[in-house]
Protein backbone atom coordinates (compact mmCIF):
# COMPACT_ATOMS: atom_id res chain seq x y z
CA UNK A 1 0.00 0.00 0.00
CA UNK A 2 1.80 3.16 -1.10
CA UNK A 3 1.60 6.37 0.71
CA UNK A 4 -0.98 8.39 -1.20
CA UNK A 5 -4.65 8.13 -1.87
CA UNK A 6 -5.41 8.73 -5.50
CA UNK A 7 -8.73 10.14 -6.40
CA UNK A 8 -9.72 10.94 -2.85
CA UNK A 9 -10.36 14.61 -2.63
CA UNK A 10 -9.11 16.92 0.02
CA UNK A 11 -6.46 14.65 1.41
CA UNK A 12 -3.85 17.33 1.45
CA UNK A 13 -1.75 17.79 4.52
CA UNK A 14 -2.78 21.35 5.10
CA UNK A 15 -6.40 20.42 5.40
CA UNK A 16 -5.52 17.77 7.94
CA UNK A 17 -3.46 20.25 9.87
CA UNK A 18 -6.55 22.38 10.17
CA UNK A 19 -8.55 19.38 11.15
CA UNK A 20 -6.07 18.60 13.89
CA UNK A 21 -6.17 22.13 15.25
CA UNK A 22 -9.93 22.10 15.30
CA UNK A 23 -10.12 18.66 16.85
CA UNK A 24 -7.75 19.83 19.58
CA UNK A 25 -9.93 22.83 20.11
CA UNK A 26 -12.93 20.60 20.74
CA UNK A 27 -10.96 18.44 23.14
CA UNK A 28 -9.90 21.53 25.01
CA UNK A 29 -13.44 22.85 25.11
CA UNK A 30 -14.85 19.56 26.37
CA UNK A 31 -12.17 19.33 29.01
CA UNK A 32 -12.81 22.79 30.38
CA UNK A 33 -16.52 22.03 30.62
CA UNK A 34 -16.03 18.60 32.16
CA UNK A 35 -13.55 19.99 34.65
CA UNK A 36 -16.04 22.72 35.52
CA UNK A 37 -13.68 25.51 34.45
CA UNK A 38 -16.56 27.55 33.12
CA UNK A 39 -14.86 30.90 33.12
CA UNK A 40 -11.98 29.50 31.10
CA UNK A 41 -14.48 27.93 28.74
CA UNK A 42 -16.24 31.27 28.35
CA UNK A 43 -12.96 32.56 26.94
CA UNK A 44 -13.40 30.17 24.01
CA UNK A 45 -16.59 31.90 22.91
CA UNK A 46 -16.36 34.80 20.52
CA UNK A 47 -17.79 38.01 21.94
CA UNK A 48 -20.50 37.90 19.30
CA UNK A 49 -21.25 34.22 19.68
CA UNK A 50 -24.73 32.92 18.90
CA UNK A 51 -25.31 29.77 20.91
CA UNK A 52 -28.49 28.05 19.76
CA UNK A 53 -30.14 24.83 20.87
CA UNK A 54 -33.43 24.59 18.99
CA UNK A 55 -36.47 22.92 20.41
CA UNK A 56 -37.37 19.68 18.63
CA UNK A 57 -40.93 18.70 17.79
CA UNK A 58 -41.94 15.94 15.41
CA UNK A 59 -43.85 17.46 12.53
CA UNK A 60 -44.80 16.14 9.11
CA UNK A 61 -42.25 18.34 7.38
CA UNK A 62 -39.00 17.27 8.89
CA UNK A 63 -37.20 20.52 8.17
CA UNK A 64 -39.48 22.26 10.63
CA UNK A 65 -38.72 19.96 13.52
CA UNK A 66 -36.08 22.25 14.96
CA UNK A 67 -37.43 25.55 16.22
CA UNK A 68 -34.88 28.19 17.12
CA UNK A 69 -37.65 30.65 17.96
CA UNK A 70 -38.76 28.47 20.85
CA UNK A 71 -35.28 27.11 21.44
CA UNK A 72 -34.06 25.27 24.49
CA UNK A 73 -31.11 27.63 24.65
CA UNK A 74 -30.83 30.88 22.73
CA UNK A 75 -27.79 32.60 24.07
CA UNK A 76 -25.24 35.25 23.31
CA UNK A 77 -21.99 35.92 25.08
CA UNK A 78 -23.52 37.99 27.83
CA UNK A 79 -26.32 35.59 28.63
CA UNK A 80 -23.87 32.70 28.75
CA UNK A 81 -21.65 34.84 30.93
CA UNK A 82 -24.54 35.45 33.31
CA UNK A 83 -25.09 31.71 33.67
CA UNK A 84 -21.42 31.16 34.27
CA UNK A 85 -21.35 33.96 36.79
CA UNK A 86 -24.19 32.35 38.67
CA UNK A 87 -22.37 29.03 38.87
CA UNK A 88 -19.31 30.82 40.11
CA UNK A 89 -21.17 32.28 43.08
CA UNK A 90 -20.96 30.04 46.12
CA UNK A 91 -24.72 29.66 46.18
CA UNK A 92 -25.64 27.61 43.14
CA UNK A 93 -26.60 24.67 45.34
CA UNK A 94 -27.66 22.40 42.50
CA UNK A 95 -24.08 22.26 41.27
CA UNK A 96 -22.52 21.96 44.72
CA UNK A 97 -21.20 19.31 44.52
CA UNK A 98 -20.99 19.66 40.75
CA UNK A 99 -22.56 17.13 38.40
CA UNK A 100 -20.26 14.59 36.86
CA UNK A 101 -20.18 15.17 33.12
CA UNK A 102 -18.10 13.68 30.37
CA UNK A 103 -18.30 14.84 26.75
CA UNK A 104 -17.42 12.34 24.08
CA UNK A 105 -16.75 14.38 20.97
CA UNK A 106 -16.55 12.42 17.71
CA UNK A 107 -17.11 12.76 13.97
CA UNK A 108 -15.30 16.08 13.65
CA UNK A 109 -15.91 17.24 10.07
CA UNK A 110 -14.71 20.48 8.59
CA UNK A 111 -16.19 22.42 5.75
CA UNK A 112 -19.43 20.46 5.39
CA UNK A 113 -21.46 23.59 5.71
CA UNK A 114 -20.76 26.85 3.92
CA UNK A 115 -19.95 29.87 6.00
CA UNK A 116 -23.11 31.94 6.03
CA UNK A 117 -23.35 35.46 7.40
CA UNK A 118 -20.10 37.37 7.59
CA UNK A 119 -17.69 36.13 10.18
CA UNK A 120 -15.22 38.46 11.83
CA UNK A 121 -12.11 37.19 10.06
CA UNK A 122 -11.03 33.74 8.96
CA UNK A 123 -13.58 31.09 9.73
CA UNK A 124 -14.12 27.37 9.54
CA UNK A 125 -17.37 25.48 9.70
CA UNK A 126 -17.27 22.28 11.67
CA UNK A 127 -19.67 19.53 12.54
CA UNK A 128 -19.26 17.29 15.56
CA UNK A 129 -21.24 14.65 17.35
CA UNK A 130 -21.28 14.88 21.11
CA UNK A 131 -22.48 12.36 23.66
CA UNK A 132 -22.68 13.71 27.18
CA UNK A 133 -22.69 11.41 30.16
CA UNK A 134 -24.34 13.32 33.01
CA UNK A 135 -24.82 12.20 36.59
CA UNK A 136 -25.44 13.74 39.95
CA UNK A 137 -24.53 12.17 43.28
CA UNK A 138 -27.57 10.01 43.81
CA UNK A 139 -29.40 10.55 40.56
CA UNK A 140 -29.85 8.18 37.65
CA UNK A 141 -27.20 9.01 35.05
CA UNK A 142 -28.45 10.33 31.71
CA UNK A 143 -27.04 10.46 28.20
CA UNK A 144 -27.53 13.50 26.02
CA UNK A 145 -26.91 12.93 22.34
CA UNK A 146 -26.50 15.76 19.87
CA UNK A 147 -24.95 16.95 16.64
CA UNK A 148 -23.31 20.35 16.56
CA UNK A 149 -22.77 22.75 13.68
CA UNK A 150 -20.28 25.44 14.50
CA UNK A 151 -18.57 28.33 12.85
CA UNK A 152 -15.17 28.79 14.44
CA UNK A 153 -13.13 31.90 13.94
CA UNK A 154 -9.53 32.77 14.48
CA UNK A 155 -9.27 34.63 17.75
CA UNK A 156 -5.62 35.61 17.38
CA UNK A 157 -4.40 33.28 20.10
CA UNK A 158 -6.61 30.34 19.24
CA UNK A 159 -9.99 29.48 17.86
CA UNK A 160 -13.28 30.88 19.10
CA UNK A 161 -16.83 29.66 18.73
CA UNK A 162 -18.71 32.26 16.74
CA UNK A 163 -21.81 30.25 15.90
CA UNK A 164 -23.07 27.09 17.52
CA UNK A 165 -26.19 25.23 16.52
CA UNK A 166 -26.92 22.09 18.55
CA UNK A 167 -29.36 19.55 17.16
CA UNK A 168 -30.57 17.44 20.04
CA UNK A 169 -31.60 13.83 19.56
CA UNK A 170 -34.32 14.42 22.12
CA UNK A 171 -37.73 15.98 21.88
CA UNK A 172 -37.98 15.82 25.66
CA UNK A 173 -34.78 16.50 27.53
CA UNK A 174 -33.72 13.52 29.60
CA UNK A 175 -32.31 15.71 32.35
CA UNK A 176 -33.93 18.44 34.32
CA UNK A 177 -31.43 21.03 33.32
CA UNK A 178 -29.16 21.98 30.50
CA UNK A 179 -27.28 23.94 33.06
CA UNK A 180 -24.40 22.18 31.43
CA UNK A 181 -23.39 23.48 28.04
CA UNK A 182 -23.24 21.23 25.01
Amino acid at each position, binding site marked *: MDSQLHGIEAADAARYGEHAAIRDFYSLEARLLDDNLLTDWLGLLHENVAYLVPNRTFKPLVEDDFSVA*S*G*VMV*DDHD*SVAAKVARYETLHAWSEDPPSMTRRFVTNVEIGVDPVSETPPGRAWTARTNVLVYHARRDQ*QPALISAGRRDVLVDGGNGLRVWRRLVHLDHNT*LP*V*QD*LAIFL
Partner: protein
Amino acid sequence: MTTVHPGTRTGGLDALLSRVRESLADGFLPLQVFNDADVYDAELERVFGRSWVFLAHETEIPNPGDYVLRRIGEDPFIVSRGNDGQIRAFFNSCRHRGTQVCRYEKGNSNSFRCPFHGWTYNNLGNLTGVPSRAQAYPQMDLADWSLHQAPKVDTYHGLVFACLDPEAVPLSEYIGDMGWYLDTNLLAHPDGLEVIGEPLRWNIEANWKLGAETFCGDSYHLQHLHRSVFEVGLVPQFRGKAETRRGLDVHVSECSGHATVIIRGPEEARIFWGSPDELKAQYRQGELSDAQFSLARRSIFQVGTVFPNFSFMHTSTAFSVGGVAGSYFIIRQWQPKGPNRVEAWNWTLVPRGLSEEAKQIAHRAALSQVGPSGNFEAEDSVVWEGITRVAGSAFARRIGAKLHYAMGLDDGSAQVMEDFEGPGTVYDTRLEDGVQRTLYRRWLQEISRGDGTAV
Protein backbone atom coordinates in the same frame (compact mmCIF):
# COMPACT_ATOMS: atom_id res chain seq x y z
CA MET B 1 -31.06 0.71 37.26
CA THR B 2 -34.64 0.92 38.43
CA THR B 3 -36.19 0.88 41.78
CA VAL B 4 -39.73 -0.29 41.94
CA HIS B 5 -41.39 2.07 44.32
CA PRO B 6 -43.63 0.22 46.64
CA GLY B 7 -47.08 1.40 47.39
CA THR B 8 -48.65 2.48 50.61
CA ARG B 9 -48.53 0.20 53.56
CA THR B 10 -49.93 0.45 57.05
CA GLY B 11 -53.50 -0.01 56.03
CA GLY B 12 -53.41 1.06 52.44
CA LEU B 13 -54.43 4.18 50.63
CA ASP B 14 -57.48 5.00 52.71
CA ALA B 15 -55.49 4.98 55.93
CA LEU B 16 -52.90 7.23 54.38
CA LEU B 17 -55.56 9.63 53.19
CA SER B 18 -56.99 9.72 56.71
CA ARG B 19 -53.59 10.72 57.98
CA VAL B 20 -53.40 13.40 55.31
CA ARG B 21 -56.78 14.72 56.41
CA GLU B 22 -55.77 14.94 60.05
CA SER B 23 -52.40 16.46 59.28
CA LEU B 24 -53.63 19.06 56.88
CA ALA B 25 -56.02 20.45 59.43
CA ASP B 26 -52.95 21.51 61.40
CA GLY B 27 -50.93 22.60 58.39
CA PHE B 28 -48.90 19.42 57.95
CA LEU B 29 -48.62 16.85 55.16
CA PRO B 30 -47.21 13.30 55.23
CA LEU B 31 -44.00 13.15 53.20
CA GLN B 32 -45.07 9.81 51.76
CA VAL B 33 -47.57 11.36 49.33
CA PHE B 34 -44.65 12.42 47.12
CA ASN B 35 -43.48 8.94 46.20
CA ASP B 36 -46.04 6.21 46.50
CA ALA B 37 -47.32 3.90 43.79
CA ASP B 38 -50.84 3.58 45.20
CA VAL B 39 -51.22 7.31 45.61
CA TYR B 40 -50.06 7.78 42.06
CA ASP B 41 -52.46 5.25 40.62
CA ALA B 42 -55.29 6.92 42.48
CA GLU B 43 -54.17 10.29 41.14
CA LEU B 44 -54.31 9.07 37.56
CA GLU B 45 -57.82 7.77 38.11
CA ARG B 46 -59.34 10.33 40.42
CA VAL B 47 -57.39 13.54 39.88
CA PHE B 48 -56.39 13.48 36.23
CA GLY B 49 -59.41 11.39 35.30
CA ARG B 50 -61.85 13.94 36.72
CA SER B 51 -60.28 17.38 36.66
CA TRP B 52 -60.16 19.91 33.87
CA VAL B 53 -56.67 19.48 32.48
CA PHE B 54 -54.83 21.98 30.29
CA LEU B 55 -54.08 20.84 26.74
CA ALA B 56 -52.92 23.70 24.56
CA HIS B 57 -53.24 27.36 23.76
CA GLU B 58 -55.64 28.19 20.98
CA THR B 59 -52.93 29.95 19.04
CA GLU B 60 -51.10 26.65 18.66
CA ILE B 61 -53.96 25.42 16.49
CA PRO B 62 -55.43 28.53 14.91
CA ASN B 63 -56.62 26.99 11.65
CA PRO B 64 -59.04 24.23 10.75
CA GLY B 65 -57.12 20.96 10.62
CA ASP B 66 -54.42 22.08 12.99
CA TYR B 67 -53.58 19.59 15.70
CA VAL B 68 -51.10 18.96 18.48
CA LEU B 69 -50.42 15.79 20.44
CA ARG B 70 -50.89 16.24 24.17
CA ARG B 71 -51.51 14.25 27.33
CA ILE B 72 -54.10 14.03 30.07
CA GLY B 73 -52.32 12.35 32.91
CA GLU B 74 -50.26 9.78 31.06
CA ASP B 75 -52.78 9.27 28.27
CA PRO B 76 -52.21 10.58 24.74
CA PHE B 77 -54.78 12.83 23.10
CA ILE B 78 -54.87 14.56 19.74
CA VAL B 79 -56.04 18.13 20.22
CA SER B 80 -57.56 18.92 16.86
CA ARG B 81 -59.34 21.90 15.44
CA GLY B 82 -61.82 20.33 13.10
CA ASN B 83 -62.76 21.69 9.75
CA ASP B 84 -65.83 23.02 11.56
CA GLY B 85 -63.52 25.18 13.66
CA GLN B 86 -64.29 23.30 16.86
CA ILE B 87 -61.56 21.96 19.10
CA ARG B 88 -61.79 18.34 20.21
CA ALA B 89 -59.49 15.98 22.07
CA PHE B 90 -59.29 12.49 20.57
CA PHE B 91 -57.78 9.52 22.37
CA ASN B 92 -54.86 8.65 20.10
CA SER B 93 -55.88 5.06 19.56
CA CYS B 94 -57.57 3.51 16.59
CA ARG B 95 -60.98 2.05 17.29
CA HIS B 96 -60.03 -1.01 15.26
CA ARG B 97 -56.99 -2.40 17.08
CA GLY B 98 -55.73 0.46 19.18
CA THR B 99 -52.86 1.72 17.05
CA GLN B 100 -51.80 5.32 17.53
CA VAL B 101 -53.40 7.07 14.58
CA CYS B 102 -51.41 10.28 14.88
CA ARG B 103 -47.65 10.01 14.76
CA TYR B 104 -46.70 13.67 14.70
CA GLU B 105 -46.60 16.07 17.60
CA LYS B 106 -47.95 18.95 15.56
CA GLY B 107 -49.43 19.35 12.12
CA ASN B 108 -52.42 20.12 9.97
CA SER B 109 -54.53 17.46 8.42
CA ASN B 110 -58.02 16.78 7.22
CA SER B 111 -57.79 13.28 8.50
CA PHE B 112 -55.89 10.70 10.51
CA ARG B 113 -55.16 7.49 8.71
CA CYS B 114 -54.21 4.55 10.89
CA PRO B 115 -50.99 2.94 9.69
CA PHE B 116 -52.01 -0.59 10.65
CA HIS B 117 -55.03 -1.30 8.43
CA GLY B 118 -55.82 2.11 7.05
CA TRP B 119 -59.00 3.06 8.88
CA THR B 120 -59.33 6.80 8.38
CA TYR B 121 -60.90 9.40 10.66
CA ASN B 122 -61.65 12.98 9.70
CA ASN B 123 -60.57 15.82 11.93
CA LEU B 124 -63.96 15.75 13.62
CA GLY B 125 -63.10 12.26 14.83
CA ASN B 126 -65.54 10.44 12.58
CA LEU B 127 -64.57 7.22 10.91
CA THR B 128 -64.77 7.97 7.21
CA GLY B 129 -62.75 5.30 5.50
CA VAL B 130 -62.48 1.55 6.00
CA PRO B 131 -60.53 -0.43 3.42
CA SER B 132 -62.51 -3.26 1.79
CA ARG B 133 -65.50 -2.23 3.81
CA ALA B 134 -68.15 -3.64 1.53
CA GLN B 135 -66.84 -7.16 1.93
CA ALA B 136 -65.27 -6.91 5.32
CA TYR B 137 -67.96 -5.09 7.25
CA PRO B 138 -71.12 -4.93 5.13
CA GLN B 139 -73.27 -4.04 8.15
CA MET B 140 -70.93 -1.64 9.88
CA ASP B 141 -72.34 1.71 10.92
CA LEU B 142 -69.38 4.05 10.70
CA ALA B 143 -70.98 6.35 13.23
CA ASP B 144 -70.39 3.71 15.91
CA TRP B 145 -66.66 3.87 15.43
CA SER B 146 -65.61 7.45 15.86
CA LEU B 147 -62.42 8.08 17.77
CA HIS B 148 -62.91 8.11 21.51
CA GLN B 149 -62.80 11.65 22.72
CA ALA B 150 -62.63 13.59 25.94
CA PRO B 151 -66.28 14.15 26.93
CA LYS B 152 -65.63 17.80 27.68
CA VAL B 153 -63.36 20.29 25.95
CA ASP B 154 -63.60 24.02 26.46
CA THR B 155 -61.47 27.13 26.33
CA TYR B 156 -60.84 29.94 28.75
CA HIS B 157 -59.61 33.08 27.00
CA GLY B 158 -57.43 31.02 24.70
CA LEU B 159 -56.47 28.25 27.12
CA VAL B 160 -57.79 24.88 25.97
CA PHE B 161 -58.77 22.43 28.70
CA ALA B 162 -60.39 19.01 28.64
CA CYS B 163 -62.10 16.88 31.24
CA LEU B 164 -62.54 13.12 31.10
CA ASP B 165 -65.45 13.13 33.53
CA PRO B 166 -68.77 13.64 31.74
CA GLU B 167 -70.36 14.67 35.06
CA ALA B 168 -67.87 17.44 35.72
CA VAL B 169 -68.85 21.07 36.26
CA PRO B 170 -68.31 23.43 33.31
CA LEU B 171 -64.83 24.86 32.84
CA SER B 172 -65.86 28.38 33.85
CA GLU B 173 -67.23 27.06 37.12
CA TYR B 174 -64.13 24.94 37.61
CA ILE B 175 -61.85 27.94 37.22
CA GLY B 176 -64.30 29.89 39.32
CA ASP B 177 -62.88 32.73 41.34
CA MET B 178 -59.43 32.16 39.89
CA GLY B 179 -60.77 33.66 36.69
CA TRP B 180 -60.64 37.09 38.29
CA TYR B 181 -56.87 36.75 38.58
CA LEU B 182 -56.27 34.92 35.31
CA ASP B 183 -58.17 37.59 33.43
CA THR B 184 -55.82 40.33 34.54
CA ASN B 185 -53.09 38.44 32.78
CA LEU B 186 -55.01 37.19 29.78
CA LEU B 187 -57.14 40.18 28.92
CA ALA B 188 -55.10 43.26 29.76
CA HIS B 189 -53.54 43.38 26.34
CA PRO B 190 -56.12 44.18 23.67
CA ASP B 191 -54.60 41.75 21.18
CA GLY B 192 -54.56 38.83 23.61
CA LEU B 193 -51.68 36.45 24.03
CA GLU B 194 -50.07 34.02 21.65
CA VAL B 195 -47.64 31.16 22.00
CA ILE B 196 -44.08 31.32 20.70
CA GLY B 197 -43.25 28.13 18.85
CA GLU B 198 -43.73 24.81 20.58
CA PRO B 199 -43.56 23.88 24.24
CA LEU B 200 -40.23 22.92 25.71
CA ARG B 201 -40.24 19.62 27.56
CA TRP B 202 -37.88 18.19 30.12
CA ASN B 203 -37.75 15.34 32.51
CA ILE B 204 -37.49 15.69 36.30
CA GLU B 205 -37.19 12.69 38.60
CA ALA B 206 -39.65 14.17 41.03
CA ASN B 207 -43.29 13.94 41.97
CA TRP B 208 -45.54 16.17 39.88
CA LYS B 209 -47.15 17.86 42.88
CA LEU B 210 -43.90 19.50 43.96
CA GLY B 211 -43.81 21.70 40.88
CA ALA B 212 -47.50 22.55 41.18
CA GLU B 213 -46.98 23.39 44.85
CA THR B 214 -44.02 25.66 44.25
CA PHE B 215 -45.95 27.58 41.61
CA CYS B 216 -48.91 27.96 43.96
CA GLY B 217 -46.57 30.43 45.54
CA ASP B 218 -43.64 29.14 47.54
CA SER B 219 -42.49 32.71 48.03
CA TYR B 220 -40.39 31.66 50.98
CA HIS B 221 -37.80 29.82 48.91
CA LEU B 222 -36.80 32.67 46.63
CA GLN B 223 -34.24 34.40 48.77
CA HIS B 224 -32.40 31.26 49.78
CA LEU B 225 -32.68 28.71 47.02
CA HIS B 226 -32.24 31.28 44.28
CA ARG B 227 -29.74 33.47 46.09
CA SER B 228 -27.17 32.96 43.32
CA VAL B 229 -29.49 34.55 40.76
CA PHE B 230 -30.00 37.64 42.87
CA GLU B 231 -26.31 37.84 43.64
CA VAL B 232 -25.45 37.96 39.98
CA GLY B 233 -27.96 40.76 39.61
CA LEU B 234 -30.30 39.23 37.08
CA VAL B 235 -33.55 40.12 38.82
CA PRO B 236 -33.27 43.69 40.04
CA GLN B 237 -37.02 44.05 40.49
CA PHE B 238 -37.05 41.64 43.43
CA ARG B 239 -35.86 44.13 45.97
CA GLY B 240 -37.25 44.58 49.42
CA LYS B 241 -37.48 41.77 51.94
CA ALA B 242 -40.79 39.97 52.17
CA GLU B 243 -41.25 41.24 55.71
CA THR B 244 -41.30 44.87 54.64
CA ARG B 245 -43.85 44.58 51.91
CA ARG B 246 -47.01 43.59 53.80
CA GLY B 247 -50.05 44.27 51.74
CA LEU B 248 -48.08 44.95 48.59
CA ASP B 249 -47.32 41.27 48.18
CA VAL B 250 -50.40 39.11 48.41
CA HIS B 251 -51.06 35.40 48.66
CA VAL B 252 -54.40 34.42 47.18
CA SER B 253 -55.50 31.06 48.54
CA GLU B 254 -58.68 29.00 48.49
CA CYS B 255 -59.60 30.56 45.20
CA SER B 256 -61.99 27.83 44.00
CA GLY B 257 -59.27 25.34 44.83
CA HIS B 258 -56.59 27.28 42.99
CA ALA B 259 -53.98 29.73 44.27
CA THR B 260 -51.78 32.59 43.14
CA VAL B 261 -49.21 35.03 44.43
CA ILE B 262 -48.90 38.62 43.31
CA ILE B 263 -46.10 41.05 43.96
CA ARG B 264 -47.33 44.57 43.49
CA GLY B 265 -45.80 48.00 43.24
CA PRO B 266 -47.25 51.04 45.01
CA GLU B 267 -50.76 52.35 44.41
CA GLU B 268 -50.06 54.50 41.39
CA ALA B 269 -47.35 52.47 39.75
CA ARG B 270 -47.52 51.53 36.08
CA ILE B 271 -45.58 48.29 35.96
CA PHE B 272 -47.55 45.72 33.97
CA TRP B 273 -45.27 42.89 35.02
CA GLY B 274 -42.18 44.91 34.25
CA SER B 275 -43.00 45.41 30.59
CA PRO B 276 -40.84 47.71 28.56
CA ASP B 277 -42.40 51.14 28.07
CA GLU B 278 -43.55 50.47 24.57
CA LEU B 279 -45.52 47.46 25.70
CA LYS B 280 -46.85 49.17 28.81
CA ALA B 281 -48.46 51.77 26.63
CA GLN B 282 -50.49 49.08 24.91
CA TYR B 283 -52.32 47.66 27.92
CA ARG B 284 -56.00 48.58 28.12
CA GLN B 285 -58.74 48.02 30.66
CA GLY B 286 -61.06 46.53 28.08
CA GLU B 287 -63.28 43.93 29.75
CA LEU B 288 -61.46 44.18 33.03
CA SER B 289 -62.96 45.83 36.09
CA ASP B 290 -61.23 48.83 37.58
CA ALA B 291 -59.79 46.69 40.33
CA GLN B 292 -58.50 44.14 37.88
CA PHE B 293 -56.88 46.66 35.63
CA SER B 294 -55.38 48.41 38.61
CA LEU B 295 -53.91 45.10 39.69
CA ALA B 296 -52.45 44.50 36.23
CA ARG B 297 -50.97 47.95 36.28
CA ARG B 298 -49.31 47.46 39.64
CA SER B 299 -48.17 43.87 39.09
CA ILE B 300 -44.45 43.18 39.22
CA PHE B 301 -44.75 39.43 39.30
CA GLN B 302 -47.44 36.80 39.45
CA VAL B 303 -47.30 33.06 39.77
CA GLY B 304 -50.08 30.56 40.28
CA THR B 305 -51.47 27.07 39.82
CA VAL B 306 -54.85 25.98 38.52
CA PHE B 307 -55.52 22.55 39.99
CA PRO B 308 -54.12 20.07 39.27
CA ASN B 309 -51.13 20.70 37.04
CA PHE B 310 -51.48 23.99 35.19
CA SER B 311 -49.13 26.66 36.45
CA PHE B 312 -48.22 30.07 35.12
CA MET B 313 -45.88 32.94 35.79
CA HIS B 314 -45.98 36.51 34.54
CA THR B 315 -43.00 38.80 34.93
CA SER B 316 -40.01 40.37 33.21
CA THR B 317 -36.40 39.42 33.48
CA ALA B 318 -33.13 40.13 31.76
CA PHE B 319 -30.97 37.39 30.36
CA SER B 320 -27.69 39.12 30.92
CA VAL B 321 -26.51 41.37 33.69
CA GLY B 322 -27.78 44.86 33.05
CA GLY B 323 -29.16 43.76 29.70
CA VAL B 324 -32.53 44.34 28.12
CA ALA B 325 -35.50 42.77 29.89
CA GLY B 326 -38.22 40.74 28.24
CA SER B 327 -41.76 40.45 29.51
CA TYR B 328 -43.47 37.09 29.36
CA PHE B 329 -46.36 35.00 30.52
CA ILE B 330 -45.28 31.40 30.75
CA ILE B 331 -47.44 28.34 31.14
CA ARG B 332 -45.87 25.45 32.94
CA GLN B 333 -47.54 22.06 33.00
CA TRP B 334 -46.50 19.23 35.31
CA GLN B 335 -47.14 16.09 33.29
CA PRO B 336 -47.12 13.06 35.57
CA LYS B 337 -44.97 10.13 34.43
CA GLY B 338 -44.93 7.95 37.54
CA PRO B 339 -44.81 8.40 41.31
CA ASN B 340 -41.33 9.88 41.05
CA ARG B 341 -41.16 11.39 37.61
CA VAL B 342 -42.64 14.41 35.90
CA GLU B 343 -42.24 16.07 32.57
CA ALA B 344 -42.20 19.83 32.72
CA TRP B 345 -43.78 21.47 29.67
CA ASN B 346 -43.24 25.13 29.15
CA TRP B 347 -44.94 27.57 26.81
CA THR B 348 -43.87 31.18 26.41
CA LEU B 349 -46.74 33.55 25.64
CA VAL B 350 -46.54 37.18 24.62
CA PRO B 351 -49.05 39.76 23.45
CA ARG B 352 -50.14 38.85 19.97
CA GLY B 353 -48.71 41.02 17.27
CA LEU B 354 -45.51 41.84 19.08
CA SER B 355 -42.59 42.20 16.68
CA GLU B 356 -40.52 39.08 16.00
CA GLU B 357 -37.61 40.71 17.75
CA ALA B 358 -39.63 41.53 20.84
CA LYS B 359 -40.97 37.98 20.92
CA GLN B 360 -37.49 36.62 20.72
CA ILE B 361 -36.38 38.82 23.59
CA ALA B 362 -39.33 37.63 25.64
CA HIS B 363 -38.59 34.01 24.89
CA ARG B 364 -34.94 34.43 25.74
CA ALA B 365 -35.83 36.20 28.95
CA ALA B 366 -38.17 33.39 29.96
CA LEU B 367 -35.76 30.70 28.87
CA SER B 368 -32.80 32.12 30.69
CA GLN B 369 -34.59 32.14 33.99
CA VAL B 370 -37.29 29.48 34.01
CA GLY B 371 -36.54 27.21 31.05
CA PRO B 372 -34.73 23.91 31.29
CA SER B 373 -31.39 25.69 31.29
CA GLY B 374 -32.75 28.61 33.30
CA ASN B 375 -30.94 30.21 36.14
CA PHE B 376 -33.85 29.58 38.50
CA GLU B 377 -35.05 26.28 37.21
CA ALA B 378 -32.07 24.07 37.88
CA GLU B 379 -32.17 24.78 41.58
CA ASP B 380 -35.83 23.91 42.00
CA SER B 381 -35.71 20.65 40.16
CA VAL B 382 -32.72 19.30 42.06
CA VAL B 383 -34.46 20.06 45.34
CA TRP B 384 -37.67 18.37 44.20
CA GLU B 385 -35.78 15.28 43.16
CA GLY B 386 -34.21 14.99 46.58
CA ILE B 387 -37.56 15.33 48.33
CA THR B 388 -39.04 12.67 46.09
CA ARG B 389 -36.27 10.23 46.92
CA VAL B 390 -36.65 10.53 50.67
CA ALA B 391 -40.44 10.45 50.32
CA GLY B 392 -40.12 6.84 49.19
CA SER B 393 -38.23 5.79 52.29
CA ALA B 394 -39.44 3.13 54.69
CA PHE B 395 -38.37 5.29 57.62
CA ALA B 396 -40.57 8.20 56.51
CA ARG B 397 -43.53 5.83 56.35
CA ARG B 398 -42.72 4.21 59.67
CA ILE B 399 -42.49 7.42 61.65
CA GLY B 400 -45.24 9.06 59.61
CA ALA B 401 -42.92 11.93 58.75
CA LYS B 402 -44.87 15.12 58.15
CA LEU B 403 -43.87 18.26 56.33
CA HIS B 404 -44.55 21.76 57.53
CA TYR B 405 -47.10 23.87 55.65
CA ALA B 406 -48.23 25.87 58.65
CA MET B 407 -46.68 29.24 57.94
CA GLY B 408 -49.25 31.93 58.56
CA LEU B 409 -51.29 29.91 61.05
CA ASP B 410 -49.49 31.36 64.03
CA ASP B 411 -51.18 34.27 65.75
CA GLY B 412 -49.87 37.56 64.57
CA SER B 413 -48.41 36.35 61.31
CA ALA B 414 -50.33 36.46 58.02
CA GLN B 415 -53.50 38.56 58.01
CA VAL B 416 -56.44 38.12 55.71
CA MET B 417 -57.00 41.32 53.73
CA GLU B 418 -60.74 41.70 54.07
CA ASP B 419 -60.70 44.78 51.86
CA PHE B 420 -58.82 43.25 48.94
CA GLU B 421 -60.83 43.64 45.78
CA GLY B 422 -60.29 40.19 44.37
CA PRO B 423 -61.83 36.89 45.45
CA GLY B 424 -60.32 34.04 47.47
CA THR B 425 -58.73 34.20 50.89
CA VAL B 426 -56.10 36.86 50.41
CA TYR B 427 -53.18 37.21 52.80
CA ASP B 428 -51.19 40.38 53.18
CA THR B 429 -47.82 38.71 53.05
CA ARG B 430 -45.70 36.29 51.14
CA LEU B 431 -44.79 34.69 54.45
CA GLU B 432 -47.60 32.17 54.61
CA ASP B 433 -48.36 28.70 53.25
CA GLY B 434 -52.09 28.99 52.64
CA VAL B 435 -51.54 28.97 48.90
CA GLN B 436 -49.89 25.58 49.13
CA ARG B 437 -52.40 24.20 51.62
CA THR B 438 -55.02 25.13 49.03
CA LEU B 439 -53.47 22.68 46.60
CA TYR B 440 -53.42 19.83 49.07
CA ARG B 441 -56.90 20.47 50.39
CA ARG B 442 -58.23 20.29 46.86
CA TRP B 443 -56.07 17.29 46.08
CA LEU B 444 -57.34 15.48 49.18
CA GLN B 445 -60.90 16.23 48.24
CA GLU B 446 -60.48 14.79 44.74
CA ILE B 447 -58.42 11.74 45.63
CA SER B 448 -60.82 10.84 48.42
CA ARG B 449 -63.81 10.75 46.12
CA GLY B 450 -64.39 7.08 45.38
CA ASP B 451 -65.59 6.40 41.90
CA GLY B 452 -66.66 2.83 42.04
CA THR B 453 -63.21 1.76 40.93
CA ALA B 454 -61.26 0.02 43.61
CA VAL B 455 -57.73 1.36 43.45
